[in-house]
């Protein structure tokens, strides 16, 4: 059931319906409001996502599209929508040529462009750093800066010469208490990973190699005030194929997951490696430091790893795991790791394996500090290959150890919904969740605002958007206070 309804394999799911790209850039005051826009909500919501400008020959993958920022600004109960492409170097080249010059990740990279064999679309995440929106790409590359005022692209983030050509990963972190930009970069040559910190003026304060046993595919990192946690997970290349020049993913289930805990401004010698059960994870929810009760420090990290796929006998299905990633098959659990700096031991526990969810957000001021809440996107099962579904919202309360879920029914597609604190907020969940929602039945996009304390009531406000906002990736909330402060 359900399965019968969708046999349209001739279509590319991630280019139709709520996924189809939009052609127009616009700035529109929003007036079609159900409910009331909170008056104590000041700042901007901005979301990145793929939106291809030129049709390219070959096989499209959801991750291929050119980055486009969609923003909604709030002030005094009013809202304005704006969208713009990130004017990457490659998009400018294509615009000059009037056609696509790169194909996507399912097709061979450009051999004639060693500087950019795959187009850096800057389509994945967006953060607020050094007074600008910084747009980043999941495979790692130059970081683009955009004006928060009109989303226009300023250019590539000007970086220390030591970072020239270093592919900055999409999930670099901004510590909004210090204004620092903490990043990692990974590559196919030793040492395979670098980690660094820029201060809020852009000066490179810390930079170090992180020696890995081989090429890896880390997607995210975690930070606490004093430590940074970097990931070495055993889902990476089949090394025989890699030696032959092919990129084939393999789950190396006999290898542990490894996590590097390093002082934020430390040196390579200070890296402490912790081993854990083999897994693969995209996104971290948060990390923090705790006293272990015996004079030691425990670094705690929470995140949403894949549920390991099992075969019909209930055994780990090693071969299926990499296919899940390729197929955009989403099946995740919520998990906690504890790295004890005194004992060197790792403890891990499953927080939840009932609800399939990902794209965790927290109150960003609390990044690095112990949080009680994580708000994640509810994920649906594939109806057909490469047809991911973001179905609703989940709220975890780690103090009560409970989970509440809200779902508006089928045919609705949500976005990562960052936490937007109320002006003069007092407690961790004193604010809203703000996110886009595509309604397939109404064929319209909405901006939804939820009470972060009680998502179960559904959106307290829904604003109809002037055009479809294609389903996309990561988002951030930049409060009015942060916009004014510049970090």
């Amino acid at each position, binding site marked *: 059931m359900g399965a019968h309804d969708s046999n349209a394999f001739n279509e590319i799911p991630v280019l139709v319906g709520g996924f189809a790209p939009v052609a127009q850039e616009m700035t529109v005051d929003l007036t079609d409001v159900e409910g009331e826009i909170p008056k104590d909500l000041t700042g901007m919501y901005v979301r990145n996502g793929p939106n291809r400008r030129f049709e390219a020959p070959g096989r499209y993958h959801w991750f291929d599209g050119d980055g486009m920022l969609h923003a909604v600004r709030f002030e005094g109960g009013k809202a304005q929508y704006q969208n713009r492409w990130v004017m990457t170097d490659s998009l400018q080249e294509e615009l000059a040529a009037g056609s696509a010059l790169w194909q996507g990740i399912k097709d061979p990279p450009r051999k004639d462009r060693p500087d950019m064999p795959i187009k850096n679309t800057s389509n994945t995440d967006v953060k607020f750093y050094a007074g600008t929106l910084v747009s980043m790409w999941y495979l790692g590359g130059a970081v683009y800066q955009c004006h928060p005022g009109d989303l226009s692209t300023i250019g590539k983030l000007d970086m220390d010469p030591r970072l020239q050509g270093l592919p900055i990963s999409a999930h670099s972190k901004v510590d909004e208490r210090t204004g620092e930009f903490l990043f990692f970069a990974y590559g196919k040559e030793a040492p395979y990973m670098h980690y660094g910190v820029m201060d809020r003026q852009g000066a490179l304060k810390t930079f170090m190699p992180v020696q890995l046993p081989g090429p890896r595919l880390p997607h995210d990192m975690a930070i606490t005030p004093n430590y940074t946690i970097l990931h070495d997970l055993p889902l990476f290349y089949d090394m025989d194929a890699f030696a032959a020049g092919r990129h084939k993913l393999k789950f190396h289930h006999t290898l542990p997951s490894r996590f590097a805990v390093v002082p934020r401004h430390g040196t390579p010698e200070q890296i402490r490696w912790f081993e854990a059960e083999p897994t693969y994870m995209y996104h971290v929810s948060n990390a923090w430091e705790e006293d272990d009760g015996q004079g030691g420090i425990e670094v705690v990290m929470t995140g949403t790893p894949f549920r390991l796929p099992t075969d019909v006998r209930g055994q780990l299905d090693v071969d299926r795991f990499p296919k899940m990633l390729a197929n955009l098959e989403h099946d995740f659990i919520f998990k906690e790791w504890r790295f004890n700096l005194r004992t060197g031991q790792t403890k891990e526990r499953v927080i939840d394996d009932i609800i399939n969810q990902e794209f965790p957000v927290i109150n960003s001021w609390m990044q690095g500090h112990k949080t009680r809440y994580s708000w994640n996107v509810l994920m649906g099962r594939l109806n057909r290959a490469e047809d991911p579904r973001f179905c609703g919202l989940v709220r975890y309360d780690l103090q009560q150890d409970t989970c509440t879920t809200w779902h508006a029914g089928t045919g609705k597609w949500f976005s990562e919904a960052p936490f937007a604190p109320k002006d003069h907020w007092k407690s961790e969940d004193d604010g809203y969740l703000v996110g886009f929602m595509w309604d397939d039945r109404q064929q319209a996009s909405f901006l939804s605002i939820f009470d972060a304390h009680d998502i*179960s009531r*559904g959106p307290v406000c829904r604003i109809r958007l002037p055009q479809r906002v294609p389903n996309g990736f990561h988002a951030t909330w930049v409060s009015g206070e942060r916009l004014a402060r510049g970090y």
Partner: protein
Amino acid sequence: MRINDLPVHDIPALDGNNAPVLDESVFEDMQVIGEVPKDLNGLYVRNGPNAYYPPDWRYHAYDGDGMIHAVQFADGKVTYRNRFVQTQGLQEERAAGHALWKGLKEPMRADRPDQPLKNTANTDVKYHAGRLIAMWYRAGMPYALDPLTLETLGTADYGGAYAKISAHSRPDEHTGELMFFDYSLTAPYMAYGVIGPDGKLRTKMEIPLPGPRLPHDMAITEHYSILHDFPLWPDADALKAGRYKVHFHADQPSRFAVVPRHGSASDIRWFDAKPGYMLHVVNAWEEGSEIVMVGTPYRLHAMADGQPDARRLERTINQRQRDFLLYEWRFDLASGTTRERVIDDVLNSEFPVINSAYQGRRNRYSYNILFPQGGREEPRFPGLAKYDLTTGGYVAYSAGPQYFYNEPGFAPRDNSQAEDDGYLVMPVWNPVDQRSEIQVFDCKDARLAQGPVARVLMPRRIPHGFHATFVSQRTLDRWK
């Protein structure tokens, strides 16, 4: 081997909170976290397996003797009571001083053609005309119990109305009738009937099927009953060889018999639908010329070529994995056609419960048990969801993945003003404190997501079990 054997597999069915309890007790004045609402009045009853004699056979979770756990709510006071269903099998065993039957995993008793496997009456329990009726999933003679003392009153044979019925017979609390079905190995393979509020057989008819089937549930509306013929049945050759193997026939339709509640065999209207298999119905009702039925069928996965993956469904059923979605069928009596749709396939949920006053009437809310997203593992019942059937939207709640929520009962608030104006009541296994609790959730709007309003801490475990029912004080009073 009988046709209606369900597939069975190894499970540690006697460990942890699956272990039986042997005392028959009454508990009152338990410690409560929160407050038991004073406008919650009535009786929650739950059935489940609870082996009287320590099994010396390869025990299966379905083998245990039926035990009824009842929780009476009266003006904020909670009284718990539990008793075995004194089935004929259990009484024979107690007279002998040891077990006389083994379980599903062992050979059946060839010397007892009347009862090759013990009818434990351990599966469902309903309230009909002043008595609790305990029923068995493989179809057997049901037993009647006193709702207040839980004393077994004998078999509920209604003067020989039938020799056996399925576990999921359905009472209509508005008319006091009990709609039942039975299925068997021999033609015509299915029967349907109605017992009146006076305990007399009012209607009975044969439902001829093309062959032996494995229907698990039925549905009723105000004027119709819906019987199920899903394209899943045991392999005939394997059966002849003494083996049991179900086959899903993805090239055959699901078929539903819509028959007037008090009709006759000639009134049966058959409707074809997409192939599938379902255990439990949420509800059914009449809407214009359509009969609407909502339930929680197994999710049928597609293979790479888009065709349904029959082997995977068979495995899921054989291995007792939980992989369900919420689904709606519409049978148009005017045109004879079926429309069907997925209401929701995001959550994996089953054991649907509704406000029983809406049984057979159009309703909006279903309260389901959440399951993890699949995989082969021991059964967990780790959360609750309140579905809005009109949108497929829901709110869900869990206190943690190792909590075990039993099938709840929906308890209407005194002077209830709306379908969801009431409480969900159920025993919950708290893995942190290693104890059972009776938990009460407010169902109105999205309040389920706020967690329990009352947690009654039990002095003794209530083992995990199967189906439950809630009988409102009003219904209890009506049959005093």
